[in-house]
């Protein structure tokens, strides 16, 4: 079937199998490989992207379901060569170790801060329940989320 969707502001149209998952569309059709496939069972959150501005696990969304909607991946966050405030906070707070969970973590936090620009630490931890870090680097990830929220542009981005 023909699927038209908007990824990081760019319209992409492709003929794909009806059963193609959004994460495979992003990686294999759009060529955007920041979004990782981790558990492939809706558990780990490595494949988290924004669908119409809200975090979803792209291993559990069909590309066809996203047709006509806006998808944002990690590649779509930086603007004019400037890292997004959440990306910058990960850098400054050492929020990543091996880096595999990082794109999903960043997207989950961007979505969280849109819904709750000034979360408590407890709200950040609850908001990241759907994202696993096998390096167990959670403390610095939470610290990065709180640091991003404390900057005006992080809370409004």
């Amino acid at each position, binding site marked *: *079937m023909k699927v038209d969707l908007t990824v990081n502001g760019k319209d992409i149209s492709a003929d794909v*199998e*009806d*059963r193609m*998952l959004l994460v*495979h569309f992003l990686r294999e059709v759009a060529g955007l490989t920041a979004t990782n496939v981790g558990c*492939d*069972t*809706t*558990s780990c*959150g490595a494949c*988290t992207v924004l*669908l119409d501005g*809200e*975090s*979803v*696990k792209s291993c*559990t*969304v*069909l590309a*066809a*379901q996203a*047709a006509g909607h806006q998808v944002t991946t990690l590649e779509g966050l930086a603007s004019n060569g400037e890292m997004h405030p959440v990306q910058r906070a990960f850098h400054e707070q050492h929020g990543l170790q091996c880096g595999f969970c990082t794109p999903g973590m960043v997207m*989950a936090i961007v*979505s*969280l801060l849109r819904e709750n620009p000034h979360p408590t630490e407890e709200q950040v931890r*609850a*908001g990241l*329940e*759907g*994202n696993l870090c096998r390096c167990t680097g959670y403390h610095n990830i939470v610290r990065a989320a709180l640091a991003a929220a404390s900057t005006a542009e992080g809370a409004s981005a």
Partner: protein
Amino acid sequence: MIPSSFSYRRAGSVEEAAGLAASYGEDAKYLAGGHSLLPLMKLRLATPEVLIDLGGLRDLSYITDQGTHVAIGALTRHHDIERSGLLGRQLPLLAHAAGRVGDPQIRHRGTIGGSVAHGDPASDLPAVLLALDATLVARGSDGSREIPVGEFFTGLFETALAPGELLTEIRVPKPARPAAWSFQKFTQRAIDWAIVGAAVQGGNVALVNMGPTPLRAAAVEAALAGGASPAEAAGHAAEGTSPSSDIRASSGYREHLARVLVARALAEANARSQ
């Protein structure tokens, strides 16, 4: 993991969805948020030949005050239920429990109607709706009918919905004492299905994952109605249940959890409504 091949059809209206379901028959499944069905399809435990996507039916996403009850469109997402001011005031049990389903990403996609129609006894909202005495509205080829939630769940992943019938609305009566609620859920990881869960609203008590369907804890309710203390009544929580044993818990451990969680739920509901 990739599902086996199917044809994807997006319905533009309830009528079109019902028409597609009628023409494809048992080869077709409705797709709402997809967060129960797609994982099963990826594991090839479900292999429908046609998916009828209901995601475009925005007119089935609403929460409205109907005086004695609140009407919730079947495609209303957990995320919207969790954040509804109306539900927070009138049905805090439902708003809270919706906010405990899965994780934020899942709640951005999953819908109340999808969760109910899936008929999984380990899901949270079916038991919550049992405790709230909800009524379900389903639309079939002969028009709409109402189904009391107590008659809806007929077996493991089986419901009273006829082939092609579409769940359109959930009607939840406003409880006399909205504050007398509690929802308890025991999981290994935050995002897991409940090993056991308990929902309390007033004198109504329902259980998650204590048998092939969500259940009312009738023995607890009878004990409470007969004047037993909450702690005494909770001792009956496993009566009439038939929990399974699996990798997460034995049936005996589930029975123990039911008694503990119901005791906690009754105590919390009492404390809240004082």
